[in-house]
């Protein structure tokens, strides 16, 4: 019992800051219960204020982006409103009627003052109303986005999870056996793969596995002959269509190679730390040191990168979705730019930004769980 108590303290030491240490020391003197209670309450409030700050920051960014997008739609010379109006007039519609149509399409009343229009735009956007699509006549942008979003989330989410899992475990292994030939080969392969753009890998996969040998489907998210439902056949079809895009995502730049290199560097740094030598000296099992001590501490900086790369990953998905005709947000973003469907384009853009910002907040919260020090700062 006693020795276990000591071990727990040693394990906690390097991860706790001075403030918490003194609390722990006081705890030894005073009655343990009350101190623990105070500490927990303080931790709760500091973590609430941390989360609060992150959320306020996220909302600020979203607000800034929506404001900028308003200016792009409405104010800039060559703005969406101008271009749609010009096209309508070219089709032989009178300027007044064109104005009315532009207002209807964008969901903005152009006769209002600019401030009122801006306010309307903010209210509409925050309610998820992005106007009406020009190309898909009669469909609201939000209904198209709602259909596209799950596919992007599926692709980016599963791609990120798989790359992260493969990459970090390979990185940990390579750092552990870093003098071996296997580790060297692993590093070279990861570094090379991390330089190859994912659309290049996508094209190669498309060429070999979907067209010259038609093993996998070349486009789409599921077999169009099936109705979307929770049947085994439908889920199988979804997974079958996911294989190639997912593989391109995992193998290309920013995929597993990136996580492998980051994790390897981080682990190599941690391996030199004193508490690792201490845990070896204490005779802990190799496996426990590797996971609970080295792995957990080495993962911290890697998770920071996770937050930074979420946006990059959404960007990378744009290429993959278009190469494989995978109808997610990136697919509609590009097709709407090609067809000058401005409401749909801005809707895709705003939604991608909101998704990225929210994903950042989630990663930040994850970070608090992983690293208790952050709460005190």
């Amino acid at each position, binding site marked *: 019992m006693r020795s276990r108590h000591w071990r727990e303290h040693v394990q906690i030491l390097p991860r706790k800051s001075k403030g918490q240490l003194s609390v722990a020391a006081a705890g030894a003197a005073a009655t343990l219960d009350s101190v623990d209670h105070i500490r927990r309450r303080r931790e709760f409030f500091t973590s609430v204020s941390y989360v609060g700050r992150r959320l306020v*920051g996220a909302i600020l*960014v979203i607000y*800034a*982006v929506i404001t900028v997008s308003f200016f*792009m739609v409405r104010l*800039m010379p*060559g*703005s969406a409103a101008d271009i749609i109006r010009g096209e309508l007039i070219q089709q032989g519609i009178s300027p007044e009627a064109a104005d009315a149509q532009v207002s209807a399409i964008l969901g903005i009343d152009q006769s209002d003052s600019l401030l009122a229009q801006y306010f309307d735009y903010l209210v509409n956007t925050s309610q998820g109303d992005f106007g009406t699509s020009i190309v898909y006549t009669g469909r609201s942008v939000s209904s198209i986005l709602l259909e596209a979003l799950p596919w992007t989330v599926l692709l980016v989410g599963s791609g990120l999870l798989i790359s992260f899992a493969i990459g970090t475990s390979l990185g940990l292994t390579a750092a552990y056996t870093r003098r071996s030939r296997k580790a060297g080969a692993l590093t070279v392969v990861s*570094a*090379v793969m*991390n*330089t*190859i*753009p994912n*659309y*290049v890998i996508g*094209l*190669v996969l*498309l*060429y070999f596995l979907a*067209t*010259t040998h038609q093993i996998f489907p070349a486009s789409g998210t599921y077999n169009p002959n099936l109705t979307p439902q929770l049947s085994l056949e439908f889920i199988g079809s979804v997974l079958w269509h996911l294989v190639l895009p997912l593989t391109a995502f995992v193998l290309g*730049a920013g995929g597993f190679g990136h996580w492998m290199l980051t994790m390897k560097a981080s682990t190599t740094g941690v391996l030199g730390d004193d508490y690792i030598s201490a845990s070896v000296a204490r005779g802990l099992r190799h496996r426990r040191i590797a996971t609970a001590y080295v792995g957990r501490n080495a993962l911290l900086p890697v998770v920071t990168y996770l937050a*930074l790369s979420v*946006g*990059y990953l*959404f*960007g*990378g998905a*744009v*290429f993959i979705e*278009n*190469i494989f005709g995978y109808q997610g947000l*990136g697919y509609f*973003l*590009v097709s709407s*730019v*090609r067809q*000058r469907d*401005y409401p749909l*384009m*801005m809707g*895709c*853009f705003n939604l*991608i*930004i909101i998704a*990225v*910002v929210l994903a*950042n907040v989630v990663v930040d919260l994850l970070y608090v769980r992983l690293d208790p020090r952050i709460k005190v700062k």
Partner: protein
Amino acid sequence: MIAAVGTGIAALRRYPGAAFGVVVLSVFTATALFADRFFPWNPMIHPDRTLQGPSWEHILGTDYAGRDIFHSLVHGTRSVMEIGALTAVVSTVIAICVGMISGFARGKVDIVLMRITDIFLTIPSLPLIIVLTAYVQSSGVFAAVAILSVTFWAGLARAIRAQMLTLTERDFVEAARVLGLSRRHIIFREMLPNLVPFIAIGFIGFFTNAIFAAVGLSLLGLLPLDSSNWGQMLNIAINGVGALYSTDTVAYLVAPIICIVLIQLAAVLCTRWLEDIFNPRIRAR
């Protein structure tokens, strides 16, 4: 200067991969600069020799319009390298200005600049670039460079600011201040040289990202560019000639891919080389 060249060469000897990177990048740069003189670009259509396989006359075969694929590839190098290099220069300059002003001025200027930087860091650059291409009317290298640079600079600006903040605490800067040297001297003579490693590595990063984005966007047919480049070749390979569906014209698909991979790989190797030169601790290992 001579000492720096000496360190560079010594690092090359220790690290042969870097030599490969430097050679490849030099070859591409030379191709971009001089190739048009030796292989004059000829957009003429030759209906009599479309979609030929590789031969002695046309090393990589011909495309759907009877043009020599090797010539198209060489010609495309120019616009790809131009966009990469110019974007790298512009983004680096923006990053240096924002980072150094923010790190030196501190206070309100710093807070405002960093808020803006944070917003740019959060917005994923590719979707922003794609949306911007819808609004840019002019086509040409400069429009493409402007669009790419606007979205790239933020990361390096933050790194430079952070570095400036630690540098102001260092003894030699303190000493310069006590000696009464001008602010200009302190910023440009004392601090800037210490930022060179960050700037150089950031520069190469911008270069590779610009090529990655420019080729990818031309592949999707989005970037407003007149001149042909590798991304357009890939675009045509997929959508136009159907290189995807026949094995004869596979060179039209594979050749640009190999060039892209080579250039990205070479840039990363050069970064490692620079890190090796700049960081004496790595050198000692």
